[in-house]
């Protein structure tokens, strides 16, 4: 069993690189996902992952399959959409989900147009499903850097971010931090999606961000518990997904996300906090 799980990592360098990259992403993406989920913005990350596409496509058109070019392009497009959506939300009556939907659709359509201008279907598939088994040194540095910036960034804005989630009006009356904190958080979301897009592809980058976060909700009562649990679940999904993908010879990105999905379903069934089993077979009620 241990050999089945860890054998490939001991044997092959590319598996070790893939593992390191996924673990780095598991450190940074799930905490961001926890906040997204609690702000009822879970689907926003899906939209953002599409919004990244035109930037990555421009990078691809300019420099071919080059990591820095596509990463920079993706970051620029994602931040641009986040900023525009945030600006529209804060200065008009339109809610955040609606303005984000508008901008991400524009962005996605632009991206598809750009990709189709040059490059074949195979290139597009590569962008969409990632290249986790071909992580080179710069890619690992990028993932590590993103994890570092995300964790320090979240620590720095943690308090105002929580206040902005619970009681934005209160935060506005005591401080002007609300706007900057919101944008900083959106920046972290975009950064992690770009990192995930490198490892897992745009379509599946969201999986490692959200599935562990949602699963963690079934195990921990408050934020201080949810964040570490979500990181643990993401790391477990990475190890399981990589092993399964190697043993069964299936694509790695989907294997990792499906592993996270499996852990989510298990959590939903047997989780201590509101899991289905506990709901069906709860103990007799207390006296007070």
């Amino acid at each position: 069993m241990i050999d089945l799980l860890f054998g490939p990592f001991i044997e092959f360098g590319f598996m070790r690189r893939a593992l390191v990259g996924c673990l780095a992403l598991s450190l940074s993406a799930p905490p961001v996902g926890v906040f997204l989920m609690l702000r009822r913005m879970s689907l926003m990350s899906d939209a953002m992952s599409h919004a990244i596409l035109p930037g990555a496509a421009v990078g691809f058109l300019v420099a071919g399959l080059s990591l820095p070019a596509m990463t920079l392009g993706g970051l620029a497009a994602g931040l641009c959409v986040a900023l525009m959506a945030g600006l529209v939300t804060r200065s008009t009556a339109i809610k955040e989900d609606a303005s984000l939907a508008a901008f991400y659709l524009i962005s996605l359509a632009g991206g598809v147009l750009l990709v189709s201008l040059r490059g074949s279907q195979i290139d597009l598939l590569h962008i969409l499903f990632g290249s986790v088994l071909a992580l080179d040194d710069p890619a690992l540095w990028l993932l590590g850097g993103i994890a570092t910036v995300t964790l320090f960034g979240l620590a720095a804005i943690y308090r105002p971010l929580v206040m902005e989630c619970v009681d934005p009006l209160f935060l506005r009356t005591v401080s002007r931090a609300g706007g900057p904190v919101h944008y900083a958080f959106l920046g972290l979301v975009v950064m992690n999606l770009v990192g995930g897009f490198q490892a897992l592809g745009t379509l599946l980058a969201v999986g490692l961000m959200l599935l562990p976060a949602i699963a963690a909700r079934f195990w921990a009562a408050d934020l201080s518990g949810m964040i570490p649990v979500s990181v643990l679940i993401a790391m477990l999904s990475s190890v399981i997904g990589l092993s399964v993908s190697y043993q069964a010879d299936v694509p790695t990105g989907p294997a990792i996300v499906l592993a996270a999905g499996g852990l989510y379903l298990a959590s939903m069934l047997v989780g201590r906090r509101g899991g289905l089993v506990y709901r069906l077979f709860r103990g007799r009620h207390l006296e007070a």
Partner: protein
Amino acid sequence: MSCDRDGAIALRGLTLAYDRHPAVHHLDGTIPQGALLALVGPNGAGKSTLLKGIVGEIPCLEGRIERPAPKGSIAYLPQAAEIDRSFPLRVLDLVAMGLWHRLGPWRSARPHRPMLMDALAKVGLGGFEDRLIGTLSGGQFQRALFARLIVQDARILLLDEPFTGVDGRTTADLLALIRSWHDQGRTIVAALHDLAQVRGHFPQTLLLAREAVAWGATGAVLTAENLARAQSLSEAWDEDAAICGRHAEPATGPDHDHSHAHAHTHEHHAHGEGHHGPSPAKAASPPKPAAPDPARGHGHAA
């Protein structure tokens, strides 16, 4: 506590509006330091709007609000519906938000824990500090918000319908807390609907129906005649209301006069007629002074 500095709020020809339709219209007056003022009026009279305006949530369309500058000096309790109670936050953390102006984003709240526990005990929530906010009842949650107000330690407290959906016992407890804040010399403005409560606990009242119907000692303000007038004045906004030609504030600086002069020309362009006061469509309005009305304000109770 630290209430020695000026805690007064002055409203100068204040108009607050949604999409140009005034919700608070040409309001003049001063809420003195240490006042315990009830804000009374029918639904849609602009009570919440006025509080939001004072706290800076809505920009002044015309006129201005003079209030103490630092952000920490005003505490505002909105209607509870605006808070996400499903967020997994512990009661103690909610109350600790009140420490923001002292701690900012990074300093530890741990040294202040005894003070937070003390605030919880004062509102009768001792032992609730580790509960999630989603598990509190409506009344308990309102108590927790009052604990946060205690921790904020502000010189001016603005309370927007603080007792809506709260039982008698809790209301009595919270009213006692408001009384103790008043004794400490804080300025308190509360939007309320329960007139008996206002008569019993609030020495000053502002009866609002977009404009001040009456403002002064509670007994003199809450007369049957004034209340009927407030009711008739407060009908919903008029889609076709004409541009208001009333002077906002006679004694403002040149900047303001200039902007108002501009409004005047605009009005003449648009309608070719100048009229004073709100739209003539409001036939129910009692006769009101057509010209600037500096006297309308504090102590002008009918």
